[in-house]
């Protein structure tokens, strides 16, 4: 018996003991297990070009996708407003999933309610669920706003949110003037980034365009302010704080829309804050008067930016700006739009990032990377790698489309390091597996699920993306701004150095290169 009270062994070590190993070996006769030689043969076959070809010929099956569904993005955007409770109309299991998913990434509570529709609602529609649900949520959780979105169930049966909310208000579920913006967010269209877009547009439409016919439309009186939209982002806590710091340094009047940087980073001090921070509702409304609206992520805000542009704003979008040039472009744009100078402090921060790149780029230069993630994240990371002299050989985006692919290829074409790099829209991580076997790279950048690829292909994983379940707290540090660029650079360098050490640490064999200075 290996277990003891002095040194308690858990799953990491316990089952390696002889007793358990023998037990598991004996279990095999009941499993009707495959011949190990056959398993080995198929395993090797999956590494071949032939398998890759069959794998890429898939038309219907998706294996290990790097995307989630719309309502997740809607919930993520909604909690970025002051005392706002996301309310997802449809089956309740979905909400349990979104809350778990967000909590596992942020290590924070995630509050959201469901209208708990079941079979009878599938037949008769979910109006009663909406009416009761709004009344209960309003009484129990004292929100200032309830932001409604939908699961695929409600979408398939065709529930009409606008009519349902109106009826619910007439029945007294919530006061007539209580803010209940809504967005249809079918899971079978787009991905979580689409849901972010739809929900945010729904909320802005609500405040700007007359609250579903219950209030006069706002009339825009342009001022000098700038609105910022972060988009769906696993680093929202660190990133939005960094963006606000930059805007404050520059003295720019601004509103961050869907600012969930506080609610996903509350202190442990004896009090549970179900709501914290968030864009004040008055600010969401008065954001209509801004001079310009900047989206940090184009593909998270396509509809929202069109809507904003129609209201007379200058609009500008970035693709998850990471690194030197992208941050330069961002601050130059801020300066141009606002007419404010770029302060010396930012210039010094820029200089420090250049300094760091100059110090370390020899270790990154020429290295090949595979990247996967959301469309803008992929673009931003690829651009930064090119800037470091690295090659983003495979860039794969399950929720990317043709336009994304063209933009990626244009980026590759713009750099000598981008020659031979390829963008893969609509592909999944099982495709990536084939790519890594047939065209190996030095490093992989992706979310937690990349660890399966790291195990199978031996490509070291640098964890950047969403969700990150198996490493803690990185979302608290920015990856945007010059400071964020430095953080990303350090993350990449740490992995590179760890790998060199790992490959040179055999005593008396390879450890001549086990250098103490690198």
């Amino acid at each position, binding site marked *: 018996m290996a277990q003891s009270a002095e040194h308690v062994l*858990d799953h990491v070590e316990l089952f390696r003991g002889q007793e358990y190993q023998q037990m598991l070996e004996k279990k095999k006769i009941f499993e009707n297990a495959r011949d190990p030689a056959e398993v080995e043969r198929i395993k090797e076959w999956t590494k071949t070009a032939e398998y890759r070809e069959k794998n890429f010929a898939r038309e219907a099956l998706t294996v290990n996708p790097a995307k989630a569904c719309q309502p997740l993005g809607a919930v993520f955007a909604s909690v970025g407003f002051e005392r706002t409770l996301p309310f997802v109309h449809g089956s309740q299991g979905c909400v349990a999933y979104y809350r778990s998913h967000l909590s596992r990434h942020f290590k924070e509570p995630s509050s959201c309610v469901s209208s708990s529709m079941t079979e009878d609602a599938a037949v008769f529609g979910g109006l009663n669920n909406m009416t009761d649900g709004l009344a209960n949520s309003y009484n129990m959780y004292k929100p200032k706003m309830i932001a409604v979105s939908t699961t695929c169930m409600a979408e398939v049966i065709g529930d009409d949110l606008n009519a349902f909310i109106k009826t619910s208000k007439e029945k007294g579920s919530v006061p007539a003037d209580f803010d209940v913006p809504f967005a249809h967010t079918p899971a079978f269209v787009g991905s979580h980034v689409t849901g972010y877009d739809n929900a945010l547009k729904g909320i802005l439409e609500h405040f700007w365009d007359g609250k579903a016919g219950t209030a006069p439309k706002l009339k825009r009186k342009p001022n000098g302010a700038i609105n910022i939209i972060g988009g769906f982002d696993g680093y929202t806590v660190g990133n939005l704080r960094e963006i606000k710091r930059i805007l404050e340094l520059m003295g720019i009047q601004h509103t961050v829309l869907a600012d969930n940087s506080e609610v996903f980073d509350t202190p442990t001090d004896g009090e549970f804050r179900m709501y914290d921070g968030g864009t004040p509702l008055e600010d969401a409304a008065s954001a209509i008067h801004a001079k310009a609206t900047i989206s940090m992520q184009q593909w998270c805000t396509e509809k929202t930016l069109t809507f904003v542009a129609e209201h007379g704003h200058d609009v500008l979008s970035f693709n998850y700006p990471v690194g030197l040039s992208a941050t330069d472009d961002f601050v130059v744009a801020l300066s141009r739009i606002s007419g404010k100078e770029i302060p010396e402090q930012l210039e010094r921060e820029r200089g420090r990032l250049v300094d760091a790149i100059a110090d370390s780029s020899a270790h990154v230069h020429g290295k090949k990377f595979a990247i996967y993630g959301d469309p803008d994240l992929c673009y931003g990371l690829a651009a930064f790698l090119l800037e470091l002299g690295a090659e983003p050989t495979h860039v794969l985006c399950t929720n990317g489309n043709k336009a994304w692919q063209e933009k990626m290829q244009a980026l590759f074409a713009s750099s000598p390091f981008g020659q031979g790099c390829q963008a893969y829209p609509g592909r999944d991580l099982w495709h990536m597996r084939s790519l890594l076997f047939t065209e190996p790279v030095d490093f992989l950048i992706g979310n937690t699920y990349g660890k399966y690829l790291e195990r199978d292909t031996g490509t070291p994983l640098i964890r950047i993306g969403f969700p990150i379940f198996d490493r803690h707290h990185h979302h608290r540090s920015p990856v945007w701004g010059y400071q964020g660029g430095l953080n990303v650079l350090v993350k990449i360098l740490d992995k590179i150095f760890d790998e060199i050490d790992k490959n040179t640490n055999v005593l008396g064999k390879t450890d001549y290169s086990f250098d103490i200075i690198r």
Partner: protein
Amino acid sequence: MSLATTRSTAEIRARNKELIEEVLKVYPEKTAKRRAKHLNVHQAGKADCGVKSNIKSIPGVMTIRGCAYAGSKGVVWGPIKDMVHISHGPVGCGQYSWGSRRNYYVGTTGIDSFVTLQFTSDFQEKDIVFGGDKKLVKVLDEIHELFPLNNGITIQSECPIGLIGDDIEAVSRAKSKEYGGKTIVPVRCEGFRGVSQSLGHHIANDAVRDWIFDHIEPDGKPKFEPTPYDVAIIGDYNIGGDAWSSRILLEEMGLRVIAQWSGDGSLAELEATPKAKLNILHCYRSMNYISRHMEEKFGIPWCEYNFFGPSKIAESLRRIAGYFDDKIKEGAERVIEKYRPLVDAVIAKYRPRLEGKSVMLYVGGLRPRHVIGAYEDLGMDVIGTGYEFGHNDDYQRTAQHYVKDSTLIYDDVNGYEFERFVEKLQPDLVGSGIKEKYVFQKMGVPFRQMHSWDYSGPYHGYDGFAIFARDMDMAINSPVWKKTKAPWKKAPIAKLQAAE
């Protein structure tokens, strides 16, 4: 703290009743009436806990429950390692449940084992409009070609499937025939069915009956030589290796485990189960259906057991041995003796640190009652418990065998109620899920996830008990809980005293 030990049960009862009344005040009248039936203070001697259960959740209250898909794909079917489980419908359900339940298995993932892969038909709008059966046919073909060593396929229906009228049964039959009789199991576990995960368990059990048991010859020759000591572990999902630290005890007492349902399980094991002499059932809630079916159809008796904590383990080993001859009965005693030094050492080390500490639980299938004994073995007191998706037979078992007089009982509790209860009862530990974890930690209350073992485990068996004890100690006695108030803030007045 441990208020429960410093007051009489009558006082506790009165306080808990008052607390329920207070919580109900927040609701609109109709909701208060409905919720009142799910909250109670247990009275010793009663046959159940006096709460209604397995009833629809109320819209908008922030129920903690999941859905039928979660019960089928996430719980019952997902852990079967050599079958491919397709999340059939839009991408989200499979994505959010991908690898998060920690159903351990041994196998070559992606080649002969598939538990931690996310297979989905990733429905698009056109699949909703024109139906998804054609896509499903293609999905099955592509699995067949790219994952040739799979031993079978299940189709786990998401909400739209049942709403758009797809005929996944016809597709399954046709493809099974085409592939020479391959096991393909359509499961109608759409998320809107039923009121929680529970119906998903039932549907998944029925799918085993209809699409596996009905396709095998019960009198056929087994692939191994039967013995009089063959048993099957039913309802252990091998979370963090739970089924392994259970199996080892059963084998040490002389039994032979021929199947694990479903953690680290395989299709062959499911098919062989009708050869078992006894089905031993851990998670009654999720697998009593198939156990009853096997009893009726194949005459296999079943018995419930509990492998949390030494008291219940010993009781269970003896109960299981009671179905066999003296050799096994002696085996059970031998196992209990073998582990006694470990148990004594664990209790000697941890009980002094945990004695008198109070616990509130809110979990799924069996744990709201099954873990109570393990806490009591460490001198701890469970002062409140409830089921996410229990039925009345769960509350009967809880009342008759587990909870003490005056325990607060909450069925299908929601965020608001649970927070208020914990705030007022100030337990030393809360055991619940990921959605609750950070809420209570923010409040300064130590917490352990009791679905996933908070990424630790196993907790079953004697080896697991040592880990359980260590984990509860590290949660409760972590120095961080003394630091939640900044030193320059005045010492907080205990909330309970303030409230009363």
